[in-house]
């Protein structure tokens, strides 16, 4: 069935088709349509599980964590400040190996207040142990949530499906909503009695300090547990690739963790995340028509970081351009850090140009992307870690202002 729906509604349909038994969420702009839509499904009797309104995001995650401890499938959704309010629980859920799936609608933190898209909220949770997937379109949101359940339940780790605030959450697109029977074939009912590295999954009694000899405060016990967690994360990628392959076989749509677009003979490769990827595709086509050998890489998966795939596609390119909607103040863009690290593992030098753009929902236009690519082609080597793309005019008052590279 094809329907014209918003990104938020696509997330709600993705959750509905995955048939969670407990759903819990707290409203926040620009996510509120997700709990609204799911509670509508619940009121209509379409959602067989239970929808519960709670008093905060901490409670939303806590409630589904409690339920997940009992081995039932759960769903929650949040954004920005709400995700930060969950931060403690994010670590806990990953540490307890709970396959919770959450939709996060990307929006920055205040102050100053902003309600539009920025990826800093989920990127700031990068060390929590949650898997993170970023979406380009509404169809991808729906499909990724279904895939995320399959992956999360197979590797027993929580997964965050990120969608751009406003740009996707409020955008209406035509979305193919798959049949329940087909989804059921892809995603069997959750049966948590399975082996995980280090033992058998036991209901309730799985909080890590309680396994491994119940050494609640022992540093060696804790370190051993982190070793296991890291091992689990390191083994995720093959599950993700397999889940996507099987999804493609059933539904005819595929979302590789690192997607290549016209990269085969490309000298310059652009890396982009989220809804801006669509604009990038357009720019790549237009530059190709003008004879430039440019390609595009879409970072679908951010955690665990698919370093081998990133290296496979980017290593040895003449230049790499990263256009991202986030900034670690005083350092640089977060994707820039991670990709640069991946490319430097064996000390081979690939020039990486990091463009920070579209913060707080500023538009990343085709013109800006094209300017960034052309700037990169002209420059011999990257001069600074942050190149400001689309920054409003600033008064020059000190050395930083004079030296910062700004492209309007």
């Amino acid at each position, binding site marked *: 069935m094809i329907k014209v729906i918003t990104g938020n509604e696509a997330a709600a349909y993705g959750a509905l088709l995955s048939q969670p*038994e407990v759903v*819990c969420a707290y409203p926040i702009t620009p996510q509120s349509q997700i709990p609204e839509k799911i509670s509508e499904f619940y009121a209509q009797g379409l959602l067989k599980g239970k929808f519960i309104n709670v008093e905060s995001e901490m409670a939303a995650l*806590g409630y589904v964590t409690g339920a997940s*401890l009992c081995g039932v499938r759960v769903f929650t959704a949040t954004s920005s400040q709400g995700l930060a309010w969950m931060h*403690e629980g994010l670590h806990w859920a990953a540490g307890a190996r709970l396959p919770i799936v959450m939709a996060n609608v990307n929006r920055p933190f205040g102050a100053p207040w902003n309600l539009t898209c920025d990826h800093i909220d989920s990127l700031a949770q990068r060390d929590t142990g949650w898997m993170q997937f970023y979406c380009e379109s509404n169809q991808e949101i729906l499909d990724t949530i279904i895939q995320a359940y399959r992956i999360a339940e197979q590797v027993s780790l929580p997964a965050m499906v990120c969608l751009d605030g406003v740009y996707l959450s409020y955008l209406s697109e035509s979305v193919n909503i798959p049949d329940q029977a087909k989804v059921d074939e892809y995603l069997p009912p959750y049966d948590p009695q399975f082996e995980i590295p280090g033992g058998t999954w036991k209901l309730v009694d799985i*909080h890590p300090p*309680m396994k491994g000899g119940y050494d609640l405060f022992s540093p060696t016990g804790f370190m051993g547990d982190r070793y296991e967690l890291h091992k689990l994360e390191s083994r995720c990628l093959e599950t993700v690739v397999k889940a996507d392959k099987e999804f493609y076989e059933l539904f005819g749509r595929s979302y590789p963790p690192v997607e290549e677009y016209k990269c085969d003979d490309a000298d310059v490769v652009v890396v982009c995340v989220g809804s801006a990827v669509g604009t990038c595709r357009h720019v790549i086509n237009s530059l190709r028509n003008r004879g430039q050998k440019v390609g595009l890489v879409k970072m679908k998966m951010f955690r665990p970081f698919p370093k081998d795939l990133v290296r496979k596609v980017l290593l040895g390119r003449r230049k790499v351009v990263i256009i991202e909607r986030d900034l670690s103040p005083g350092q640089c863009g977060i994707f820039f850090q991670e990709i640069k690290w991946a490319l430097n593992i064996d000390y081979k030098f690939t020039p990486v140009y990091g463009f920070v753009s579209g913060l707080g929902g500023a538009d990343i236009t085709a013109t800006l992307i094209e300017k960034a690519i052309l700037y990169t082609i002209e420059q011999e080597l990257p001069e600074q870690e942050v190149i400001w793309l689309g920054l409003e005019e600033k008064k020059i008052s000190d050395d930083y202002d004079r030296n910062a590279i700004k492209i309007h």
Partner: protein
Amino acid sequence: MTTTEMPLRYTKEEYIQPPHGFCPGCSIPSALRWFLKVVGDKVILLMPPGCASPSVLFPKRSLIYQGRYIKVVATPFGSAAIFAGGLKSALIARGDTETQVVAWAGDGATFDIGLAGVSGAAERNDDIIYVCYDNEAYQNTGNQRSSATPWGGTTTTNPLPNPKMEHKKDIMSIIAAHRIPYAATLSTAYPDDFMRKVQKAKGISGFRFLHILTPCPAGWRFPLELGVKVARLAVETKVFPLFEVEYGDTITIAKEPKGLPIEEYLRVQGRYRHLAQEQINVLQSEVNKRWDRLQYLAKYSLGKGCFV
């Protein structure tokens, strides 16, 4: 109020197997022991950080019944009630209506950091038993002030000459205002009354709140062997009256206190040693006020309220 209640039933077997990690003279093990003897082994305990969770998990797990561990989840600090609600939902989804889901939290986790979660669970009337063991400060971290610390009391974050200048938060009134099916205060000095209330709570569905005063020899600074005596004096001086609240508006005073002067309770505890007579009078008048209000509410109780 006279009700036809079931005769008290509890197991003679023990749930706490040494070694456990509680301090010598602590009142919490008695509370846990009597609670579990009545509730039984079909139970899941959710324990936020506090005195109880490390003490039953370290140096080894000490809550064991007939060779099997009692299920304990060590939750984040403010999340015990929340986790409990979610866990209960999941059990119901899987057809288990028998297992009692219990949040076992200290005063810090209840009065302070977890209050929003407790209020949320109470408002939703989640089918859980919430137990607050109240030792009137963050005793697990070494006796820092909580909003359960009484006026005039010293803690490590209210050292002399700056004892606490705010009265203890009236948590029972806050909880009662949610009009939950059952809330009660329990004392470790009165096992019969304690277990009767636990049994009553067990027989009710919905959100049940048990507030237990657990005197702490380390933080309150009294000799190790006086835990029961201090608990009894708290009741007899009306500092901690034993009462029950049903549906927010049926209040029953479970035990008429002797009304001993508050000095008798204060003078056995080092945390109040600095109090001058006029300061003792301040505490006495606060206790009297709260007691008068409680008596008034008990007298003019309305009967069962909104959940019936």
